[in-house]
C-alpha cells in the first residue's frame, strides 16, 4: 500500500504544482522539469539499470523531437489529422525506430565499446543534421504551431499551463511504465546483465538481447521526452540532439543517483531549478554546475538519492534524530566554507565593481573584504574538520547493528 500511496502522492504533486506557483516563470520551469524527468528516467534505464554508458542519448530525444515538430507542421497543413496530445507518442515511435536500428549493432558489448559507439553515433547524427537542411532546418532548426490541431475536450493549448497539464499526464504515465518495466523479467535481467553478463548467459539469457530490449525501451521514452519538448517549445534545433544535450542528461541522472529509480527524477528537478534560477543570480552557474558534478562523482558516487537512502538503516532503527545535531554542527561550517569559496570566485569575477552576494555587498577592490573572507573560510574549514570525527562517531552509533542475528538492512 505504501507504494500505491507514493504514486498517488507523485500524481498530486505533478498536478498540484501549478496551483501553488502560477507565475509564468514557474510554469516554464515546470514544463522543463517534465521534459527532463522523462528524459533522465529513460537515460537511467540504460546506465543505471542496464550498465550501458551512453554519450549519445540525445540522438533519440532529438530525432523524436524533430519528427514531432514535423508532425505538428503536418497537422497545421492538414496532411494528417489527430490530436496534438498524441505528439509525444510520435516522438516515442521515432526514438524507438532509431534505437532498434542503432541497438542492432551497438548492444553487442557494454563497457567502453558501447560508450564509444554511442559517442560516434551521436557525433554522426549531430553533424548529419547540419547537412540535411530540408529535414533538420540547419542551424535555425524547424518550428511549428501547436494550436492548429483538433481541440482536446475543448482545450486548444494556447497557454503554457495547458501544455503543462498535458506533459504532467505524459510524465506520470511514462514514469509508471518505466517503473513497471523494472519489475518485469526483461527489466530484472537488465540488472543481472549489468552486474554480470557472463553468468546471465549461463542461466539462459543472451546478454545482447537483454541489452537490446532495454536500449529500445530507453530510446522510446527518450523520444517521448523529445515529443514533449516539441510541444512545449514548438521548435527544435540541432543542439537538441548533439553532445551537449547528451552530456546534460548524463549529468542529471548521475547527480540524482543512478542506482535508484527515483534518482533521475531528483536530478532532473535539481538541475532544471539550477539552470533556471541560478542563472538569474550569477553568470557563473555553469562553472558551479561543473563543480557540483565533479564533487558528486567524487564524494557521492550514488548521487543525491544514494545520500538519502544511506539514512534508511538509521531511520528504520529510529535513530535518525540522533544524527540531527552532529549534521548541524558539521554542516553549518561546511556550508559557510563552501559559501566563502563561492564568494571568492564571484569577487574574482566581478573585478573592480561591488556586487550583491546573499545579503552582503562585496567589493574585490576592498582588501578588508578579502581578509574577512579568508578568515571566515579558514575558520569554517577548521571547524568543519574538527567536528567531522564526532559526526563519524554519531554515524557509526546510529547504524550499528546491536545484534547481528537481527539481520537484514531493513
Amino acid at each position, binding site marked *: 500500500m505504501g507504494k500505491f500511496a507514493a504514486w498517488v502522492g507523485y500524481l498530486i504533486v505533478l498536478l498540484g504544482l501549478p496551483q501553488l506557483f502560477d507565475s509564468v516563470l514557474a510554469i516554464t520551469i515546470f514544463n522543463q522539469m517534465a521534459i527532463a524527468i522523462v528524459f533522465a528516467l529513460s537515460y537511467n534505464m540504460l546506465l543505471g539499470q542496464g550498465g550501458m554508458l551512453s554519450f549519445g542519448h540525445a540522438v533519440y530525444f532529438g530525432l523524436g523531437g524533430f519528427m514531432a515538430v514535423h508532425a505538428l507542421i503536418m497537422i497545421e497543413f492538414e496532411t494528417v489529422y489527430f490530436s496534438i496530445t498524441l505528439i509525444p507518442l510520435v516522438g516515442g515511435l521515432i526514438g524507438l525506430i532509431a534505437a532498434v536500428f542503432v541497438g542492432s549493432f551497438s548492444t553487442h558489448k557494454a563497457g567502453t565499446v558501447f560508450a564509444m559507439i554511442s559517442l560516434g553515433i551521436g557525433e554522426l547524427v549531430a553533424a548529419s543534421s547540419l547537412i540535411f537542411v530540408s529535414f533538420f532546418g540547419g542551424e535555425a532548426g524547424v518550428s511549428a504551431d501547436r494550436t492548429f490541431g483538433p481541440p482536446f475536450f475543448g482545450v486548444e493549448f494556447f497557454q503554457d499551463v495547458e501544455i503543462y497539464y498535458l506533459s504532467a499526464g505524459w510524465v506520470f504515465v511514462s514514469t509508471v511504465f518505466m517503473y513497471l518495466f523494472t519489475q518485469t523479467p*526483461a527489466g530484472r*535481467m537488465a540488472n543481472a546483465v549489468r552486474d554480470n553478463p557472463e553468468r546471465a548467459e549461463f542461466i539462459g539469457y543472451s546478454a545482447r538481447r537483454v541489452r537490446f530490449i532495454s536500449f529500445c525501451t530507453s530510446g522510446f521514452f527518450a523520444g517521448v521526452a523529445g515529443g514533449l519538448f516539441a510541444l512545449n517549445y514548438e521548435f527544435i534545433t540541432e543542439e537538441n540532439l548533439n553532445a551537449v544535450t547528451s552530456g546534460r542528461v548524463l549529468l542529471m541522472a548521475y547527480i540524482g543517483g543512478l542506482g535508484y529509480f527515483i534518482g533521475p527524477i531528483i536530478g532532473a528537478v535539481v538541475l532544471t531549478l539550477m539552470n533556471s534560477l541560478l542563472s538569474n543570480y550569477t553568470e557563473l552557474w555553469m562553472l558551479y554546475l561543473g563543480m557540483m558534478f565533479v564533487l558528486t562523482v567524487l564524494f557521492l558516487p550514488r548521487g543525491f538519492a544514494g545520500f538519502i537512502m544511506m539514512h534508511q538503516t538509521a531511520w528504520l532503527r529510529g535513530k535518525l534524530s540522533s544524527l540531527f545535531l552532529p549534521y548541524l554542527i558539521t554542516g553549518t561550517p561546511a556550508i559557510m566554507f563552501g559559501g566563502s569559496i563561492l564568494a571568492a570566485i564571484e569577487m574574482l569575477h566581478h573585478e573592480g565593481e561591488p556586487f550583491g552576494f546573499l545579503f552582503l555587498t562585496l567589493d574585490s577592490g576592498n582588501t578588508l573584504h578579502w581578509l574577512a573572507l579568508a578568515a571566515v573560510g579558514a575558520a569554517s574549514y577548521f571547524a568543519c574538520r574538527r567536528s567531522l570525527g564526532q559526526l563519524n562517531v554519531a554515524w557509526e552509533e546510529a547504524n550499528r547493528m546491536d545484534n547481528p542475528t537481527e539481520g537484514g538492512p531493513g
Partner: protein
Amino acid sequence: MSILSLHNVSKSFGKTEIIRGVNLDIQAGERHAIIGPNGAGKSTLFHLISGKYQLSSGRITFRDQEIQNRPPYEIARLGLARSFQVTNIFPRLSVFENVRCGMLWQQGLGYSFRHLLGRQTELNARAIHLLEEINLADRADFPAGELAYAQQRALELGVAIASGADLIMLDEPVAGMSLSEAEAAVSLIRKITKGKTLVMVEHDMNIVFDIADRISVLVYGEIIASDSPQAVRANPKVQEAYLGEAALAAAGDNDA
C-alpha cells in the same frame, strides 16, 4: 542411457593443445567426478561443454542434440546448468533476486515485459524454498556481493540449480572453504542434486571418493581412465600419473 557424450573433443589455444581428443559418456542420474592435476584442462573442458569456449574439433551431444559451439544461453535452456570455480553471481542484486533470475527462463518468462515479477506468486515461493534449501533464507534481501565467502559459494550453487536443470556441472564447489564449511557444502550438494545428473571437478580427494559414482581422470588434456572409484584407485596408470602414494594413503585412511 547417456545424457551427455563427448566425441573426440579437442581444443587448442594458438599452438597449445589443451584438450586432446576427449571421449566421455555421462550416464543419466550418475554423480561423475573429473579429477586431474593442475593445468590438466578440467575447467577448459567445462567451458567447452557449457558453450563458453568454441571447440577446435569434435562433437558434444546432450540428450541426443548436438550442442558444440552453440552459445551458452542456448545450452542452458536445454537443461544444462553449471557453477563456476571463481564465484560468479550478480553482486548488486539481492540474494533472492539472484536465485529468482536463475529460475526465470525455465518458467517460460523469457524476455517478457508483460509479466510483473511481484505477481508470480508460485515463482517467488519456489525461490524462497530454494533459499531455505541452501540456508540463505535469512539473507534473502542482502545484496549478494556483501555475503561471506562460504555463503557466496552456496549462492553460486543456488543460481546454478535454480533452473531445475537435469544436468548440473559444478566446478570446484568447495574450493577455499574450511573443513566444516566444506562438509556442509557436500551435504548440500547431495541434497540438491538428488535425482539429477551431477558432473563435478574437485581437488579434494576425500570429497570426490565420497560423492562420486564414477570418476574420470584427465591428464594433459586426455582422459586416461573413466571408471568406478575403486577401479580408478587401483588403476596403475592413474597412480603413476596423478594420485601418488600419499594421496592414496589419505584416501585409504578415510575409507577405513
